[in-house]
């Protein structure tokens, strides 16, 4: 006698339409601060993913070139902790546009000048995206750490002085930031801080990593189990056009690198296949239209 089969939840998949965007976890999960909402719990001690070397980056760039990748994003952890970052950027900017996601704390005058030189030495865009979580220390510091607001804005000022206009990224941990009034307030704050053309990206929160403790984890209903996505909905997800590489291989996206099941292959060619959207964070990407791209 056989037992009745218990149906497993079925999840929709996203196809890889084209590998347009390659993310590089150049600082691994190592960071000089410990934000209370970090979805991969980056910290000075988190070595889940190690730093990448220049040689590793070169190998990924070579493979990406053959696949026609359109753009590159550098993240961590804190990318400026990796001393080879400027050389990595120089290699990258020879074959496409690059964006660096940073907390801004290590942007010295010399670093800002070097970024300006890199931007001037390429025909492609070099974009710097600085994370902040409020328009003053009272809103930002409880999330990103004591004293960080002033240090972030000092880094932004150094970029602006070097002629680089960063994008500021704020999460919804800053209450009201996503509303029309909140955005207007942020843009005004950035103008006041000396940015002539303020640029802002507001990101939803991911209930993973440190954020699970700060607020809450995903609940059972926050899932794409049993859902059907139209082709247009599936193609709107960032996993239909990007992959993430870390020192440990190719992952589906920048969000899920702490999930072993989200590791897809040890080469990009091996990761050009559909991905089953069985993770809770997939719910956020679909429902809130989240993309880690600028």
């Amino acid at each position, binding site marked *: 006698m056989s037992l009745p089969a218990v149906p497993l939840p079925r999840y929709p998949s996203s196809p890889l339409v084209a590998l347009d965007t390659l993310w590089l976890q150049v600082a691994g999960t190592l960071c000089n601060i410990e934000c209370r909402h970090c979805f991969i719990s980056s910290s000075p001690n988190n070595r889940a993913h190690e730093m990448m070397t220049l040689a590793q980056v070169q190998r990924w760039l070579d493979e*990406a070139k053959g*696949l026609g990748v*359109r753009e590159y994003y550098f993240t961590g952890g804190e990318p400026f902790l990796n001393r080879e970052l400027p050389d990595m950027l120089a290699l990258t900017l020879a*074959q*496409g546009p690059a964006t660096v996601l940073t907390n801004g704390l290590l942007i010295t005058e010399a670093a800002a000048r070097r970024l300006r030189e890199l931007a001037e030495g390429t025909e*492609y865009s070099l974009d710097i995206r600085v994370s902040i979580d409020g328009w003053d220390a009272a809103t930002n510091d409880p999330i990103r750490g004591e004293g960080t607001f002033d240090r972030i804005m000092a880094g932004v000022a150094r970029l602006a002085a070097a002629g680089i*206009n960063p994008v500021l990224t704020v999460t919804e941990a800053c209450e009201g930031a996503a509303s029309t009034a909140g955005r207007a307030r942020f843009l005004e704050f950035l103008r006041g801080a000396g940015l002539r*053309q303020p*640029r802002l990206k507001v990101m939803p929160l991911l209930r993973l990593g440190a954020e699970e403790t700060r607020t809450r984890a995903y609940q059972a209903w926050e899932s794409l189990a049993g859902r059907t996505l139209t082709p247009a909905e599936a193609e709107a997800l960032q996993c239909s056009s990007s992959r993430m590489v870390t020192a440990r291989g190719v992952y589906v996206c920048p969000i899920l690198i702490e999930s072993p099941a989200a590791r897809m292959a040890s080469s990009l060619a091996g990761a050009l296949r559909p991905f089953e959207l069985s993770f809770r964070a997939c719910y956020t990407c679909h429902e809130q239209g989240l993309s880690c791209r600028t």
Partner: protein
Amino acid sequence: MPDVTRTAELGTFRRVALLGGIYSNYLALGEALRIARERGAEEVVALGDFGAFGPHPDRTVEILREARIPAIQGNYEESLAGGADDCHCGYTDPRDNLYAQASYDYTRLNTAREHKEWMGTLPAQARLGVGAKRVLLCHGSPRKINEFLWASTTPAPFIHKLLRDHDADLIACTHTGLHWCRFVAPGRGVVNVGALGRPANDGRPNVWLTVLEADGDAVRAEFVPVPYDHERLAREMESERLPAEFVETVRTGWWTTCLEILPARERAMGRH
């Protein structure tokens, strides 16, 4: 993916003029057709987005139809013909979308039904030869009508892939409003023809058309400035109560809206 069964074959030429987004700038269109003739263009093709931004959208469509200009759909024609509620321009910033909506609502209200039906009959893409090279004409990119191909974010390896995937030597597109070209081999590459409807965010009020010309086995792309009576257009936009920000762009040559979609490099070149 665009419906490739709706690709027009236009023939082979030595010299063609290509018109990017016209955005209801019928005054610049008149000048562009005159300049194209002067330049000896054997054919003129419009790459979509006839409406938006400017006044009296029917005037542009009437000139195009009267002159029997071969044309492909832009996202505007696709949206207007399909009765969509918005232009599907592809912006992501709320302020950008606000202005895009004002622009679309005006154009939709002021475009005759018969013209909307004509837009629905236009092909999604077209192919033509320039000398020995095969040119694919599209609105945004060969893979998506509203994809933005900017100079600073369309790198050579990506261009190789587009040419391979879409079986072309040269891709000509518009949608961004900024003209540029990148050749990855002689006669092989991407030419963004820019816009005929709106200045190129360079502080000059003129707009641009593009001439492709056979050059031995290769193709040369020339961007030709199109001066026109921009003050008259600005006044007409004011009487139509179009946003003052649009009028400012016509008068100054600097973009005031739809800026957030610009990559870092292109953004830094403008005033706002």
